[in-house]
């Protein structure tokens, strides 16, 4: 369970997030909203790259905001970035292995886990390829494997489908849906692609100008007039 409790973020005079609260309980949840709504800011509060002016984020009883960014990763927080961050001078295998380097399990167990995850995302034959030689989609898949490694508890994707084709987006969506079953981690997905969100997310938070405008089961939320207004604009009367 992920509890976002009245989180506020200000950049100077700009209010990026205004007392946003939500309790995510489903295996895969979504966060949507127009550009500048505060989606990535919220994710950065989770990872520790942006400090919240007020509020708490509690996951499985742990107050995440008290931990330093790398300690959150040790706790089990994983995230991908809008631009996938795969190191060019490491192989796919090593890129995923980094995530387990602090684990207390033995080296061979960790290597077996990494090999399994690379196979799961469909990169088994590319495991020894260097990051610089991968295609955009392969980099994204490697990133997903990385997010699943080392006993994650909460995995966050920031616009994972950006720049992907429809088929690739579908493959990615299927993979994201498997994360909970494979690792037990809860997943949060930010995207503009409402189709992807409605396909994989059971519940969705909608932000606009830093405020929560709707939260609940995805289908209901998408039918909400306020959400439609935020996305499509209101009719002039």
């Amino acid at each position, binding site marked *: 369970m992920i509890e976002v409790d009245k989180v506020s973020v200000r950049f100077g005079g700009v209010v990026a997030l205004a007392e946003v609260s939500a309790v995510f309980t489903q295996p895969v949840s979504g966060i949507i909203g127009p550009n500048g709504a505060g989606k990535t800011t919220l994710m950065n509060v989770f990872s520790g790259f942006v400090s919240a002016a007020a509020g708490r984020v509690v996951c499985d009883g742990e107050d995440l905001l008290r931990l330093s960014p*790398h300690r959150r*990763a040790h706790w089990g927080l994983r995230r991908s970035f809008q631009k996938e961050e795969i190191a060019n001078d490491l192989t796919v295998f090593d890129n995923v*292995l980094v995530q387990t380097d602090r684990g207390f399990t033995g080296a061979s167990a960790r290597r077996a886990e990494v090999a399994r995850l690379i196979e799961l995302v469909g990169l088994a034959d590319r495991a020894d390829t260097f990051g610089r030689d991968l295609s955009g989609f392969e980099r994204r898949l490697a990133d997903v494997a990385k997010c699943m490694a080392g006993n994650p508890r909460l995995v966050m994707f920031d616009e994972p489908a950006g720049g992907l084709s429809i088929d690739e987006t579908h493959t990615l969506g299927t993979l994201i849906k498997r994360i909970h079953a494979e690792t037990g981690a809860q997943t949060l997905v930010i995207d503009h692609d409402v189709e992807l969100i409605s396909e994989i997310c059971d519940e969705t938070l909608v932000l606009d100008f830093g405020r929560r405008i709707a939260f609940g089961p995805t289908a209901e939320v998408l039918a909400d007039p306020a959400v439609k207004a935020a996305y499509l604009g209101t009719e002039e009367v």
Partner: protein
Amino acid sequence: MLKRLLHVTPSGAAGLAFAAFAFLVIPALAGKLWLSVFISTGCFVLAIAGVAFMYARLGMVSLTQVGLMGVGGWVMLRLNHAAGFPFEVNLVIAALVTMVCGWILALPAMRMRGLYLALVTLMAAGGLEIIFATYQFPNGGEGFWGVKTGSADAFRRPWLAQTPEAYLRYVVAFVTLGFLFIEAHRRLWPGRAWALIRRSEAAAMAAGVNVTFYKMWAFGIAGVLAGAAGGLLAGSLGLLDDATFRASESVMLFALAVVGGARYWLGAVIAATLYRILPALLNNWGVDADLAFVIFGAGLLHAVITAPNGIAGQIMDLAAGLRARFGKGGKP
């Protein structure tokens, strides 16, 4: 995992072959003057390996490497004249003291990105230059600074390497160990953490990498190598001159590391050759050694414009191309 650690790449094989050549052949052929040039070249290869690795693997720019060599050299001379430890013990202490000094100097910059480390280390190099110029290097005198006028006391070389030929071999062995030390790190978990830090510090943090810790680790390795290089340099003549350790030399050393190719062992060798052997050659030919600066400048322009991986990168690409063409396969 052990197999991955001990795997020999073509570039690594070439490096080991070159080390064997430098160990066996060069000392046998070189005259007395050239022996001392080669010994100092070897010491600078070790120091360049430190800065080059930090730059290539983490994108960190340190402009105080020669200053840190001075610290290592100072500790080495001080211990030689003050205590009766064997050479190797002094060398280890010199390397460790240099590492700690490097940490203290760089600590304020470790949490910052990009240019700050370069600026802070450059200031440190300037400070060290003044200290060395003011107090000079120990030569057997009294007191903490250990400086006296007149001729210096004797320096004890390692018992394995009493002659200049043997000392060159000794230095070559240390340089080889230094490269293997860096490469072993690169292949294990610190190397993975460093690669991620170079990609993006945010991504590294998100992957659970303690960015400050791993940067400190890398800077510590560069410090150890600089300290050992300074200590070995002190052992070459048994005394050091403060003019060797000016701040401008640190900047020059970094620039040459880029010209040579910071990613490769060959790059460090090329850089040290340009830095030490080229001026000696020019002197030998009766040409003003300052001409070397013109050549360095041309080399830097060449690297910036056409060779992002330096001269060594171009040579390695050429070698890989030839291997692919003549069908032996294998990755560079």
